[in-house]
Each structure stands twice: as C-alpha cells, then as structure tokens.
C-alpha cells in the first residue's frame, strides 16, 4: 500500500540506551556449542557487544526517563504533546496501555490521545505513518512517538540463535506540522500467514504462562528455550528480507519518482550485520550509505534500531544539515514498510544512557 503525506517533519530524536553492556564472550559458556563454533558465529554475523536493561526496568521507566530528560533540557514542553504513541512488544501490563501509564506518571494533560501499538522490527515506520496521519487533524500539532522494547527478558540465555544479538532500547521522536515541508512517501505490507516466524508462544491468552511453559527444551540446532521465550525462524526471516525488501524499496522510489542514487542514507532496521550487508549488496546500495553498526555496538532492539542508527551515526550533524533518508523496517508480523523523507535541521538528535 502506497501512502503520501504533506507538510510534516521530524523535529527531534532521542535514543535511551541501557548502561549495562555485555560482550558476546560473556555468554559463550551458556551455549551448547564449542567456543570456536560460537566465535565463528560472532565473526560471520558481526556480533560483539550488546546492551540490556537490569531485570527491574520496564518500558514505561525508560520512556519516562527519556521524556523527563527532554522536559529538563527545555527541548519539549509537557502541554505541547497532543498525542503519545507507544510502539512496543514489551508493555508493562496486558492492560492498561503503557502509554496511559506514562501519561499518568508524567502528569501530562488530559486533552490528548494515548495509544499503544504492537509492532516490532517495523515499529519506527508504522509509528511515523500513524503520527503523520494524526497530524492531519487541526487539534493535533505535536506527536511524541515512543519506540521501546525490552525483549532481553524474553530471550533464553541459552539460545545462541537470538541471545547474542538481542538488545534493549527506547527512543523518543517528535513529529510536527511543517507548512513548507516536502512530500513524504511511504509504503507498507503485511503477511500474517507467516506470523509464527518471530513469536513468543506463551504468555498471552492462547497459551498462558505456567510452570510447563517455563521449561527449557533443546531444538534441532542445539539451542535451549522455553515456550515463554522468543523464537525466531532464522532461515525464513532471512529469505523473507532478501525477497521482499529490495522490491519494496524499488516500488517506493517509483512511487516517489525519486532516483535511488540520490538517497543520502538508508537507515534500515538492523537484524544483524550479515543480513544487512547482503541486503545492501542485493540492492546495489553502497555499504557506506547503509550503516550496519548498531547490532555490534548495542544489539538489536527491534524497531528502535532505526532511530539508534540515526542518532549514533549522524547525531549532531542533523542539527545543521538535512539528508534524504530511506527508512525501512521488516520483521515481526510479518510487516515490512519503508519511508522516503528529508530528515534534518532537528532541534535535538542524541543518545543518552539510562542511569
């Protein structure tokens, strides 16, 4: 589905990262593989460090921390927030919405909209598309988009398939009206028939968590996980990404009537370095235009990898400059989405540690 928006802009991006850093080697003894096998995995997939929150930290804590930072620095005013969107797969509770929890904790005004949306790898794009749509309303002048995931608690430490790459993070993105803004082009597709390619089987109503769903079992590849844990079909996800993403970007450029060579940066979701480099090569995009250094430095925090890639690789450069960016997310759902827009002249673009 093609979508077009007018007169909107991103005015600031803040990424909040855990201060606790782990090295790949810290967990190597948990895996049911010889150390040299695991070190080969590290090299091929491009794993190194990753960051996870302490056990008692929840999604609302990190979002409140980021928003309070912006209030304290006078980068955002409480009363200016007309909509608070939270995209997460790790809510504080099944009910109420975590966005309502955040609104209450911060004492935000009542005359606003709070909304939780469950999305994973494509959560930055789905969040932006939703924010742009809300800004069509006269009453909504500023949207705060929160992307947050703390999935490290849901990944088995003995799952070499997922644990080395998992990261936790949150980001706060401000989206507002811009009278002289350029057109923004987007597209999105969904395939729920493959919804089990990335899933946490137990813990919802279909399969409530019990003592049995917490029992670790070995899969055919030698990884141990429980039904309470995230499970990823690595080969299916790889093939999905390589098959669907290049035509999606081609279709976006055709829709926008834009030459792909004029895109300054491809800020894509980062499952791992291996997959992203294969994708860049297949799309014939120079690797330097598609940063792929987030997983090796911070881990894969689902959709938060996109704002993290922007704040980590460009940071303050985006205060005085602007670039044509192609943003893309692909994964859980399955959902895949991309956006072509100019990003820059931001009020702030930085990353902070959660302390």
């Amino acid at each position: 589905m093609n979508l077009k928006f007018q007169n909107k802009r991103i005015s600031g991006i803040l990424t909040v990262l855990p201060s606790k850093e782990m090295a790949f080697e810290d967990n190597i003894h948990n895996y049911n593989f010889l150390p040299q096998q695991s070190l080969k995995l590290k090299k091929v997939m491009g794993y190194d460090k990753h960051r996870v929150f302490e056990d008692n930290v929840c999604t609302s804590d990190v979002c409140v921390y980021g928003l309070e930072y912006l209030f304290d620095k006078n980068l955002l005013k409480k009363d200016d927030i007309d909509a608070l969107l939270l995209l997460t797969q790790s809510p504080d509770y099944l009910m109420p919405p975590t966005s309502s929890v955040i609104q209450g904790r911060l004492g935000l005004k009542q005359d606003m909209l709070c909304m939780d949306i469950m999305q994973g790898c494509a959560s930055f794009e789905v969040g932006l598309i939703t924010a742009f749509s809300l800004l069509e309303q006269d009453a909504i002048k500023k949207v705060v988009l929160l992307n947050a995931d703390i999935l490290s608690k849901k990944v088995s430490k003995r799952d070499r398939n997922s644990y080395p790459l998992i990261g936790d993070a949150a980001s706060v993105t401000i989206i507002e009206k811009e009278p002289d803004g350029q057109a923004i082009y987007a597209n999105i597709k969904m395939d729920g028939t493959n919804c089990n390619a990335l899933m946490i089987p137990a813990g919802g109503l279909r399969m409530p968590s019990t003592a049995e769903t917490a029992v670790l079992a070995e899969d055919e590849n030698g990884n141990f996980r429980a039904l309470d844990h995230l499970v990823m079909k690595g080969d299916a996800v790889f093939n999905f990404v390589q098959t669907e993403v290049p035509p999606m970007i081609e279709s976006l450029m055709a829709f926008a009537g834009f030459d792909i060579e004029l895109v300054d940066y491809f800020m894509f979701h980062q499952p791992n370095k291996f997959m992203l480099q294969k994708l860049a090569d297949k799309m014939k995009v120079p690797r330097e235009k598609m940063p792929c250094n987030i997983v090796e430095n911070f881990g894969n925090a689902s959709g938060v990898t996109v704002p993290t890639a922007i704040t980590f690789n460009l940071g303050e450069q985006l205060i005085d400059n602007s670039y044509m960016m192609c943003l893309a997310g692909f994964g859980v759902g399955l959902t895949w989405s991309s956006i072509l827009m100019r990003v820059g002249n931001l009020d702030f673009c930085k990353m902070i540690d959660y302390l």
Partner: protein
Amino acid sequence: MNEFYEKLAEILEVDEVHDDDIITDFDQWDSLSALSVIAMFDSDYGITISAEELVNHKTVGALNSFLNNNLK
C-alpha cells in the same frame, strides 16, 4: 570441482565435497553453515531455499541437481 562445489567446500571448511556426501554429516554443519548456504543460493544464484529444503536434499549431489533445476 565446479564453482558451486567450491563454495560449498569453503562454507563447510573442507578441501572438496563429493556428490554422495551427506550434508548434515560434515563436522562444520550447524545452523550458521545452513544460513551461509541459504545466503549463497540467494546472492549468487537468485534462488530461495529454506533450511528444511536444504536438509531434505540430504546429499551434495541432490543439492547440485536442485540448483541446476532452478537456475533461470
């Protein structure tokens, strides 16, 4: 050895592979080498193969036939 066999041997870290070699019997066979083979099929030949299909072909020779039957 043809090019495909050479690439397979490199991923499996052996000097050469033969038609009747069982893929899953190689010492270096694991989920990482499976993904490497899947990626090689995709990037070098434009063919999508799942981990299950890969294992179901059992031998190097059968995998080579699958490749030749799917080349455009």
